[in-house]
């Protein structure tokens, strides 16, 4: 029983990290109607930036975020302006292709600069753990979860307590109407893309501190992130949180009680069933948006 409890607890903690990555993805979709296939590649890029800072400049992983988050934000804004804004027609479909191209460009550059070696992020706290009842909780999981909570709270404040947040939400609800009431939709889109990408800097650091990675790792990530946000209902931020945690908990418990080889099958089957009952996802508002 304590084993299942442990599975649930670690599932919640790692789920928090996935929530951080998925939040950016679903936010970008909500505002811009585009599916960012490069989100996984941005996570890995963020992890490599943290790696570079910690190995070459000996900057602590968490302190390094004060550098990597702004860098990734600026990168996001530039890429939106360069690659996403020119897409005028069939945005959703074309965005899949554009961001896929972006993902393989990032992967190729990472091979070029960092080689294909497995790397992992280290700091004094990555191997520490705290006794909780019959088992130990890894300190890095707790720290990463705390980081997710802080950043997601900041995101909440940004979206619900600022003027920019109002513009974002207005654009999510109805782009044309937002345009009509004088919201600079393009600026909102650029900043949103920047924020979504900036979140991956933190997600990447947390991911790299718990799992070894290579430039190739983004394929495994993006498929899970996509499934999470569809499960939640695309554009739903709170839903992405719950779905991330739910996915990790289900996988952990299945692999503890049954077998790891069926862990993701259970989740995918659940996803298919839920989409059949609620095609808009668990927390999605629109059944067939714009159709």
């Amino acid at each position, binding site marked *: 029983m304590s084993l299942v409890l442990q599975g649930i607890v670690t599932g919640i903690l790692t789920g928090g990290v996935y929530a951080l990555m998925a939040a950016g993805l679903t936010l970008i979709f909500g505002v811009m109607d585009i599916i960012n296939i490069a989100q996984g590649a941005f996570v890995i890029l963020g992890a490599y930036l943290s790696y570079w800072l910690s190995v070459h400049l000996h900057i602590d992983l968490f302190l390094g975020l004060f550098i990597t988050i702004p860098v990734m934000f600026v990168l996001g804004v530039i890429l939106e302006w360069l*690659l996403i804004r020119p897409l005028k027609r069939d945005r959703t479909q*074309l965005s899949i*292709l554009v961001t*896929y191209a972006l993902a393989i460009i990032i992967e190729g550059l990472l091979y070029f600069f960092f080689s294909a070696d497995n790397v992992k992020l280290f700091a004094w706290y990555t191997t520490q753990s705290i006794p909780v009842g019959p088992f130990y909780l890894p300190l890095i999981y707790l720290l990463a979860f705390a980081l997710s909570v802080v950043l997601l709270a900041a995101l909440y404040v940004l979206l619900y307590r600022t003027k920019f947040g109002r513009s974002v939400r207005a654009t999510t609800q109805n782009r044309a109407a937002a345009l009509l009431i004088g919201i600079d939709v393009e600026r909102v889109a650029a900043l949103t893309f920047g924020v979504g990408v900036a979140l991956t800097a933190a997600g990447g650091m947390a991911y790299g501190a718990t799992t070894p990675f290579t430039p190739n790792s983004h394929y495994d990530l993006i498929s899970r992130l996509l*499934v999470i946000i569809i499960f939640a209902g695309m554009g739903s931020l709170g839903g992405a949180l719950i779905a991330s945690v739910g996915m990790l908990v289900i996988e952990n418990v299945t692999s503890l009680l049954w077998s790891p080889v069926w862990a993701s099958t259970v989740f995918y089957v659940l996803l298919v069933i839920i*989409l059949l009952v609620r095609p808009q996802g668990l927390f999605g508002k629109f059944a067939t948006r714009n*159709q």
Partner: protein
Amino acid sequence: MATVAHTQTSAGQPGRSGAGRWKPFQIVFWLACLIAAIVFPLVFSSPAITTIAFFTLVFAAAGTAWNIFCGYSGYIALGHAVFFGSGCYTIAILCAHWHIAGGWLPFAVVPLAGVAAAIVAVPFGVVALRTRRHTFVVITIAIFFIFQLLAYNLRGITAGSSGLELPIPPWSGYVFNLPFYYVILVILILAVVTSWFVRHSKYGLELLAIRDDEDRARGLGVRTGLVKLSAFMLSAFFVGMCGAVWAYFVESIYPNTAFDAQFDVLIALMAFLGGLGTIAGPLLGALILQPVTQYLTISIGQSGLNLVVEGVIFLAVILLLPQGIVPAVRELIFRRFARRDAMPVAPAPPAPAAVAPATEPNPPDSVAAERS
């Protein structure tokens, strides 16, 4: 208005003014392509080149088949690797079960692999086709992963991660690729002809109507569920045959190479590159993309920069020609002729308005953004 013009796929639409004089050119063009394809491996006989040509035709055929469903109905599926993989495993299992030796005989199993894939498409389609747009895209991805996991885990049938082997044909290296090349060429021709017949039939118009406005199409009496599912199966049948020939060619298959996520992305990319919903589009896309990626991997793959160059090419294509090469070129030619004839500007062809009143598959808001 111009935006409406190029969303219309128009490979010689019957009864279209101005299109009639294209007919002879088109026939000559397709015949030339056919002859070029037939003599190609005889002229460029190096196995290194015919290997790439073979893989290119596999993708061209699979892309054409993908387009029969996805291009015409507007449902973007990223799960066709399920059919490819089903084809691979069907031929491997049947050859082992019936003790078929390497040679011509395994090719006889290829249509069975197609049938198996079409059968797999029934439950897949029944489940996935109840959803639309993004949900459909992602549900196909999810179902794809379920199948890949089954291939790993049903060890009794698939041998799990150890993979399966196919019989090895006794042919020598310098002629080895030819039978494979011509078999896949036949499949490709069948796929193109099927695609053409679908496009020029009432059935095809029903698919296009679904793309343009599914609810309205149903209102007009199109049996949308049946039309979608049958097109899905047709598409799966050809992709399954491609998988079977591919498997026989590479001779060993594994869950992650038969059910390959990159296959899903690649055929979609090829269709988009050439022009979604056009007959020549997926062909042209495969013809450009497959040799280019294989060559890039060989020539500059040592540094990992092949991925960068590939990505930059994709970006350039999508940003410069967002509607694909075939529609862009066609429109260019069409406009040139329209000008020379000093016709009053008439770029917008008469849309098949009776069937498809709403010709714009875009979300309305993005249209608004464009016109602003």
